[in-house]
């Protein structure tokens, strides 16, 4: 975060970065044509042909003498809504003012739309000519999606009048443009947790007797036990006093771990939502559901950029969690370029993880590293539940092989005693096998995609606590 601000303030002073001048080769060969015409004119003794050749020489000179002007533009960019909801169309207006003294006879402007956004209305570019002091304006719309999106510099390509040379300039707008899109966290259903709990009261039933609602055991009466907990039936039968023990329900500490390595930015189709988006959406649902149930919830990412929201509770924590899931750079809509050091990450993660925390690990599980990490965390005593959006495809041989490998990984995790749920994907219902019979027939059908909540609800029935 701090790095980005630094680089931006560096860029404040030189807003324009002139790249290079290149020859386009547009008039290459005109000399040849001119020479050929003159030669033919001489051979045929035809003065008009020689004259026509001279015109060609004129063009060649025109192309040689010109120089690509520098695009000294002042760019201002305005967005219609700086904090839109997901799916909203945001209109972006770009104004480029020619602040230099030179006429720009051939100018192309291409706006630096953030990589995570898609322009839906009109191209984000314009071709124009600008006299000194003139202003060009163009407008386009982007569809907002989750995350904080910063615009990259506008790229201006200025050519000389003949078009034989061009110069590229990257121009930052006067004030940096960004939109922040924070989705409302959808309330998720009941998310089953594993039996690792804190000492606080909550919703996760434990194997500890105490106060609660569900019967656990009886024990002999001790002085001071509340009268309401005495087993009066037994007293009537045997004459002995005994006390009912109820199953204690305690709160859990949960850390939502989202896989945001570069390998997790995969999708069944190039244009589809990536597994990271699906994971973040599901993590949001889990976050609200668990926080509502009185558990302490934290957020971490598995990726090159550090993101750690310690487990907590309360409305401030809820707001912080929502913001983290929406705009944290570690969960950006496009992968980060930084390198990921797995063992360093794991050491740091373990140091931060509270002893009584269990982990909900959201990962597409398309590589072995994710599966082995889940087992390692589990082995360190933090019970792990793997929640895996299915991002695999079936179109090609390679796609299918990776799909089978992922399935095998899920089975291995389950046989190692780690709970795993998958959702989405092209073949819903695979998990419970309700549609197992017709599955092979409708392999290509995408109608069967299963939502996170449905998958969890279905899995809950199978799990014992």
């Amino acid at each position: 975060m701090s790095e980005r601000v630094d680089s931006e303030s560096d860029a404040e002073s030189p807003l324009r970065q002139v790249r290079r001048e290149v020859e386009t080769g547009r008039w290459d060969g005109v000399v040849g044509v001119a020479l050929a015409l003159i030669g033919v004119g001489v051979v045929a003794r035809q003065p008009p042909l020689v004259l026509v050749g001279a015109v060609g020489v004129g063009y060649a000179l025109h192309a040689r003498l010109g120089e690509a002007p520098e695009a000294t533009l002042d760019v201002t960019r305005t967005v219609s809504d700086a904090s839109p909801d997901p799916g909203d169309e945001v209109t972006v207006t770009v104004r480029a003012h020619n602040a230099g003294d030179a006429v720009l006879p051939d100018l192309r402007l291409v706006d630096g739309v953030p990589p995570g956004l898609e322009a839906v209305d009109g191209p984000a570019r314009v071709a124009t000519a600008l006299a000194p002091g003139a202003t060009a304006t163009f407008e386009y719309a982007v569809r907002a999606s989750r995350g904080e999106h910063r615009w990259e510099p506008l790229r201006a390509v200025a050519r000389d009048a003949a078009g034989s040379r061009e110069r590229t300039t990257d121009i930052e707008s006067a004030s940096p443009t960004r939109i922040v899109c924070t989705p409302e966290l959808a309330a998720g259903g009941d998310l089953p947790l594993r039996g690792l709990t804190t000492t606080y009261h909550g919703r996760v039933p434990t194997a500890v007797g105490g106060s609660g609602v569900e019967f656990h055991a009886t024990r002999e009466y001790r002085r001071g036990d509340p009268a309401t907990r005495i087993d009066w039936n037994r007293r009537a039968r045997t004459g002995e006093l005994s006390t009912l023990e109820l199953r204690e329900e305690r709160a859990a500490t949960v850390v939502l771990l989202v896989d945001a390595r570069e390998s997790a930015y995969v999708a069944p189709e190039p244009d589809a939502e990536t597994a990271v988006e699906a994971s973040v959406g599901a993590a949001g649902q889990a976050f609200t559901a668990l926080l509502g149930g009185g558990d302490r919830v934290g957020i971490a990412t598995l990726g090159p950029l550090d993101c750690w929201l310690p487990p907590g509770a309360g409305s401030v924590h809820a707001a912080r969690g929502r913001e983290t899931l929406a705009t944290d750079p570690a969960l950006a809509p496009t992968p980060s370029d930084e390198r990921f050091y797995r063992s360093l990450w794991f050491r740091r993660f373990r140091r931060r993880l509270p002893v009584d925390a269990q982990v909900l690990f959201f990962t597409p599980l398309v590589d072995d590293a994710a599966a082995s990490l889940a087992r390692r965390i589990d082995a360190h005593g933090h019970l792990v539940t793997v929640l895996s959006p299915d991002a695999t495809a079936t179109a090609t041989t390679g796609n299918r092989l990776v799909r089978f490998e992922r399935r095998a990984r899920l089975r291995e995790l389950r046989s190692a005693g780690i709970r795993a749920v998958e959702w989405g994907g092209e073949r819903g219902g695979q998990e419970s096998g309700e549609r197992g019979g017709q599955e092979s027939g409708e392999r290509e059908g995408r109608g069967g995609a299963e939502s996170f909540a449905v998958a969890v609800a279905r899995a809950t029935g199978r799990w014992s606590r």
Partner: protein
Amino acid sequence: MRPLVAVGVAAVAVGFVAAFDRGLAAALDPSTAVVTLVGLFGAVQGLRYASARRSRDRRTTDLGEPERRVRATVPGSDLDAEIARVASSSRGGYRSRSALRDRVREVAIANVARERNCSTAEAARAVESGTWTDDPTAAAFLADDAPYPLRVRLRVAVSGESRYGFGLRTAVDAIGRVEADGSGTEAGR
């Protein structure tokens, strides 16, 4: 090339001198033949320049497509490139070929073990002997010594596809069938 350059430089030098020294200009014979020759030379050179242009591309800055969202990778698309590369090279790439084959074999063994409810070692034997699938091509791809059926050999020879690539595709399809069977039995559980 050098002599040609020397002739060219000499000709230009004579031309410059002739522009100032009328004596030299008079000595040159401006006959029809010489003028025609110079004209022809010019025409030929001109055509050469012009045609050289045709093979050259215009260099313009690639403006890219900022309007589109960054495209996500489809899991396994890199594997497809790898398969295509390994399958097309007839010689060499032995190591990558066997690495890919091992990867397919591992998945096959895991699936067979699950479907037949047997140990991994037994499944490995089934895959090695080729009894894990009905498809002889898929069996041959992973087996130690099972030959490809003649029909496949002919087909591969005619189509020009490599036998390895064809076998790999068939084997993965066969695993898909085993996998679908397996989830069917899982449903009954």
